[in-house]
């Protein structure tokens, strides 16, 4: 990862169904996690679930975040299903 990209990570069921653990996207001014989800959903197939009915949890730099959270170059964004530990 370089200073002008954003790292995207997937966990658990999402990681398996997207067959993707990690990818990088270019940073853009005003980019939000919601916009990232929308653009990834356009890839079709399993990716459409990122805007589907099943809830997707969002973390930015390892802190829970919202669809409206803005993302900057160097940030780590994670998408995952509701947690089920304990």
């Amino acid at each position: 990862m370089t200073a002008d990209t954003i790292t995207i990570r997937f966990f658990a069921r999402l990681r398996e169904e997207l067959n993707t653990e990690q990818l990088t996207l270019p940073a853009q001014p005003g980019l939000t996690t919601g916009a990232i989800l929308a653009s990834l959903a356009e890839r079709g197939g399993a990716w459409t679930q990122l805007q589907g009915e099943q809830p997707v949890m969002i973390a930015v730099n390892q802190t829970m975040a919202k669809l409206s959270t803005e993302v900057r170059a160097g940030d780590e964004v994670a998408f995952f299903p509701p947690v089920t530990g304990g």
Partner: protein
Amino acid sequence: MISIQTEDFDPAAEYQRLRDSGAGTGAIATFAGLVRDSGDLSDVEGLYLEHYPGMTEQVIEGLIAEASSRWDVRRARIIHRVGRLALQEQIVFVGVCSAHRSDAFAACQFLMDALKTSAPFWKKEITASGEHWVEQKNSDVARSDAWK
């Protein structure tokens, strides 16, 4: 203290450490979760646990800080295992020592309930016929919300 580990843990040693927390300790509450033979599926043969390294520890530290601000917590210990776990293996340990039993119980139970809905762990059930990612339970969310 927080440990996320693939190895098993020893509740006896953890209890002893909680007990050695000084003459003001009057109460030790502990909880351990084990792999059960039926969850979302029946005939479960084991679990696979995934987590988000780094974030997990951060979230749990926050939960312990919150528990310590709400109750008298002299020491809190959380261990959560990840990776492949067989039937009846220990998954999670939460131990709290306090001056008073009501605080020890409340903090221990709060930590377990909050862990279930806030810490980035995901559980997959393994049976003879396949695997299945466990769905979050509404009842777990309700229990966790009840502490707010």
